[in-house]
């Protein structure tokens, strides 16, 4: 690094020099959903890279202990503003987006089961935020944190690579998942603002983000019917450790020359569903699981879908072939684009990430 170049660098590695970055250390950065699992890591990553002017937008009901801990140990010259509000309020959005050079939009819909709730808290909230930022004319990058859920993954043979070139779900309303519908429409909205209003945006699509105690991802299996049904089998699970994911998100907001691009976020050396489950059951908690081969899970999804239609929704269409293709079809994943264009590398190896994760899952008896 030349002496004359200011750098926005992560502590560990991955120097991001000023000539590669669209912002300087004092530019205002807004992070929505900053109190969340990923949001707090994004905040920490921004500070580690030397950004000194960060606004954290959180819900009034958010648990702030993680943010407060970060504020406590922040560099002396860093300013962190915690702003409570609701993205459905245009006034709150304006106050938050004022003079923001980069917006990291992580806040997500809370009504996972309800289509209107998920849509309202994702799409309408995003529209409000973008509209607010347009009033100030200072926005250099809008980073939307989306999801793998937007991909259709159909019309591809088993085992093919899912990357950024793969098609998005054309009819997300038929997937039976409010979250998928909201995320697809949210991406479309942001793309339209990019096209029609010149909003410089980047889409970040993390796979299964792990790192704290929570339900086992549905890509491995489900426990909705009593015993844990293991559906993943030999499928690779697109895990990304929360720190690696936060790193990718932060880079997507800083690196020059990537406007309009989408990036999948998955780590290297992904475990198979079977490997993960074995590790989990051996080290975190023992429980009974029943393996359901892919042909059978496909047939069950097909039957559920047909029954749901025949019975006019007596069972909601939450299991269907579209979902099967996305979650349980044998697929490989790539992070080549992320590495090539953002210079991202996973700082937490999968083996180390899994070790830490399993530790967090140990204390009590729930499927973590």
């Amino acid at each position, binding site marked *: 690094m030349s002496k004359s170049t200011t750098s926005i660098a992560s502590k560990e590695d991955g120097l991001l020099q000023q000539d590669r970055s669209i912002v300087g250390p004092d530019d205002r950065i807004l992070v929505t959903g900053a109190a969340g699992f990923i949001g707090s890591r994004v905040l920490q990553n921004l500070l580690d890279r030397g950004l000194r002017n960060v606004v954290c937008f959180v819900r009034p009901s958010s648990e702030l202990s993680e943010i407060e801990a970060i504020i406590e140990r922040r560099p002396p010259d860093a300013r962190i503003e915690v702003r409570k509000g609701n993205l459905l309020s245009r006034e709150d959005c304006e106050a938050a987006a004022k003079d923001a050079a980069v917006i990291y939009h992580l806040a997500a819909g809370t009504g996972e089961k309800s289509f*209107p709730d998920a849509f309202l808290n994702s799409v*309408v909230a995003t529209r409000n935020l973008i509209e607010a930022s347009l009033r100030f004319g200072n926005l250099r990058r809008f980073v939307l944190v989306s999801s793998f859920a937007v991909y259709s993954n159909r019309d591809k043979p088993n085992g093919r690579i899912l990357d950024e070139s793969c098609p998005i779900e054309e009819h997300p309303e038929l997937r039976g998942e409010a979250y998928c519908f909201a995320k697809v429409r949210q991406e479309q909205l942001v793309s339209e603002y990019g096209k029609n209003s010149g909003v410089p945006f980047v889409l970040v699509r993390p796979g299964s983000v792990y790192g704290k105690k929570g339900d086992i991802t549905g890509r491995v299996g489900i426990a909705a019917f009593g015993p844990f049904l293991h559906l993943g089998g030999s499928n690779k699970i697109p895990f990304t450790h929360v720190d690696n994911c936060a790193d990718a998100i932060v880079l997507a907001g800083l690196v020059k020359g990537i406007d309009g691009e989408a990036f999948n976020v998955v780590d290297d050396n992904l475990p198979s569903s079977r490997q993960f489950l074995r590790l989990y059951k051996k080290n975190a908690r023992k429980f009974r699981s029943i393996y359901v081969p892919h042909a059978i899970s496909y047939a069950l999804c097909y039957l559920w879908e047909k029954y749901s239609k025949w019975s006019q929704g007596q069972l909601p269409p939450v299991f269907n072939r579209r979902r099967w293709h996305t979650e349980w079809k044998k697929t490989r994943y790539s992070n080549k684009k992320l590495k090539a264009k953002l210079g991202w590398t996973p700082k937490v190896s999968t083996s180390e990430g899994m070790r830490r994760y399993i530790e967090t899952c140990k204390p009590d008896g729930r499927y973590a």
Partner: protein
Amino acid sequence: MLRVAIVGCGKIADSHALQIQRIEGCEIVAVCDREPLMAKQLYERFPVKQYFTDLAELLDRARPDVVHITTPAESHFDIAKFCLEHDCHVYVEKPFTLYAEQAERLVDLAERKRVKLTVGHNDQFSHVARRMRALVQSGYLGGAPVHMESYYTYDLGDPSYARALLGDENHWVRRLPGKLLQNVISHGIARIAEFIPSDSPQVIAHGFVSSLLKQIDEREIVDELRVIISEEQGTTAYFTFSSQMKPPMHLLRLYGPKNGLILDQDHEILLRLRGQKFKSYADMFIPPALFAKQHLGNLFTNVRLFLGRDFHMDSGMKYLIESFYRSIRDDSPVPIPYREILLTARIMDAIFSQMSSDRSHERFAALPQPVPSE
């Protein structure tokens, strides 16, 4: 073909659209929401012909026969009034209005305009509720109910609603006169109103903030309510609303001079309570066997309904909508008598008036309060 419109495209509008599309002889000609994105998303996901952001424009261009109002409660009165004035039949989601006086004005307007009006008390039309009503009408109780107990619990842990409510000081539910209670208790009160013979019962309400909410510094939301309702002819009722009671229940106990009935909405169970005792030890052996038989009967009924594709979660809503549409087509009586809608509104008014803002929200008790009749 009955032309239907839905105003308000939030969560409950989905249930309406789902049930309406299952009913023959009707079509959703338009949906409306002030937020264009919300109107569009409902339009995209259901067979809907048009979407609007302006109600007047919808009424003018889509020309609906029936309007379903699924907006937040504070707007029910104005929207319903506007639709009635435009000669539309109106289905208003619960709670019907904010005040009984508004409910009376809507009923009066509907009668003057010769259009129909109903409220979304769909729990009254679940399979089990209809079976209970048929038994009561057949005289099973042996006369008018002597006493009723209506239980209605609400899980504040539900992330999709309660967290948003508790975390948002500007949530629309907080602006309702009865706050959380107003948005939730009408189903449980309506069950009682159906069987209260008088139009002016006395209401004693006692409400408080649960210890759980106090722990998180919530002082405004009353989430525990106990009500005693009594009337001159001797029928009495207890109403219990709780966010803390377990197991969760939506239950009505109905006691007549001869027999009783228990309606368990959550499990779709109806139990007959035999008034006569068996002799000696037989009273300890025969009734358990008879209850077991009744439980088996409920199980078989539920399985039969499920196999017959008639056991949807919102089956009560479909039945209510279907009955309402039939009353429009045939000009027959509406499925929920206006008296029952008004009495429910008056009892709720009486409850909320005992929670006036100049008292502590944490704890209050009130003197008996007669419900004013028309």
